[in-house]
């Protein structure tokens, strides 16, 4: 499968990660999930392509944000499907990709 869509998170969503839910404040993981991740992922699923999440120039990657976005996605579609259709890129901190992968694979684990 090839990459046909990219979410430039720092440009499209905002340059900072917030916490988990809307009630926690701005730029929450749930907000990212509702407005960007879920609709674009569903299109990728339908079109059978990979959605790239580009994290360059994006501040932070707190567990609550990742769990509130990628964790929910994983619970909705299962880890295997999500990992098949999503690729995460962060040149300045490749650990962010690992962390997202861990949460996708273990959405219920602390």
């Amino acid at each position: 499968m090839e990459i046909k869509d990219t979410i430039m998170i720092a440009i499209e969503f905002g340059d900072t990660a917030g916490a988990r839910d809307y009630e926690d404040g701005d730029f929450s993981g749930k907000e990212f999930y509702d407005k960007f991740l879920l609709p674009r992922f569903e299109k990728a699923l339908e079109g059978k392509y990979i959605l790239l999440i580009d994290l360059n120039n994006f501040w932070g990657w707190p567990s609550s944000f990742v769990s509130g976005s990628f964790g929910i996605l994983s619970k909705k579609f299962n880890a295997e499907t999500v990992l098949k259709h999503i690729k995460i890129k962060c040149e300045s901190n490749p650990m962010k990709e690992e962390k997202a992968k861990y949460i996708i694979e273990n959405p219920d684990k602390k």
Partner: protein
Amino acid sequence: MKKIYKTKKWRKFNAKRSLKAIKNKRKRKNKKFIPSKIADNSERKPLENIIAPEEFSFINNTEKVLEYFQLARNYLNLGYPIKFDISQIKTLTPDAIILQIARIKDETFHKKTGIAGNAPNNPELKKLFLESGFYNFVNTPGNKPNGKDTLIHKITKNKVEPQLAKQACLVGLKHAFQNDNIFDPMFDILIEIMQNTNNHAGETRGEYDWWLHIYNDPNTKTAKYTFLDLGLGIFESIPAQNFKRKLSQAIGITNNTSLVKPLFNGEIKSRTARPERGRGIPQVYESSQHKAFNEFIMISNDVHVNMKNLKTIKLNYNFSGTLFYWELKK
């Protein structure tokens, strides 16, 4: 004269208004003075001088600083106005300043009784005190000394503020690292502790304010961060209490220091009991291990823990709230 003033309707209205005014004036004149019962019974209490410990550092001299605030609280509860006397202190760290500000602004602490104060006599400490932005939060005669722009003093309510977290990171990074590159561990810490205050400091969400203070030490090229809330404290929160209950049922009597490792390991479940929750404090612990953090202290309730080496001290006094202090150094 305007035509309106000649109308019958106006004259009638005006006469009625004049009569009412005369009646009210007479009523006020004849009113008997009845002194307030409250004012009668309450005699003016003398100002109590509360002397700060010579080592005025919450992170290094926790017990004495807690004792100092407890003494102040006792007097305030009895209705005595107090004076925070820090004139004789010999050492001062920024965490103590921000704690004092937070206490002064805390209504449950001052109970609307007057709090006065002074500054350290020692010139170096006085400089730090004046630059801390302390005077932005209290009333003082004359001009207020200005805080340096490298210090962020922020009180906020309810929400996690990612843009403020970014700004706070940049203030310290420019000083300690001489660059403004993204530094995720510290940003993540700020988000998680803001969320922790928002979700767990009180019985309901967003009940307590949090305070953030950054001091860029020019002598050591270190950025010193203090974050605190005056909520229930981590170990008095519902999830921690539930965990403690289970632990004491399993292994007998236990105290809060035994909750430190389970807390950092993520064994203490969030109040929602949703399995994906409760990752916040474990993430703070994980990020605190980064080598750029020279020191990392957490004080909550009767527990003082050095997060770098997990050295834990049980305190005799309870700190109602949670304080994180760390130093960023290249």
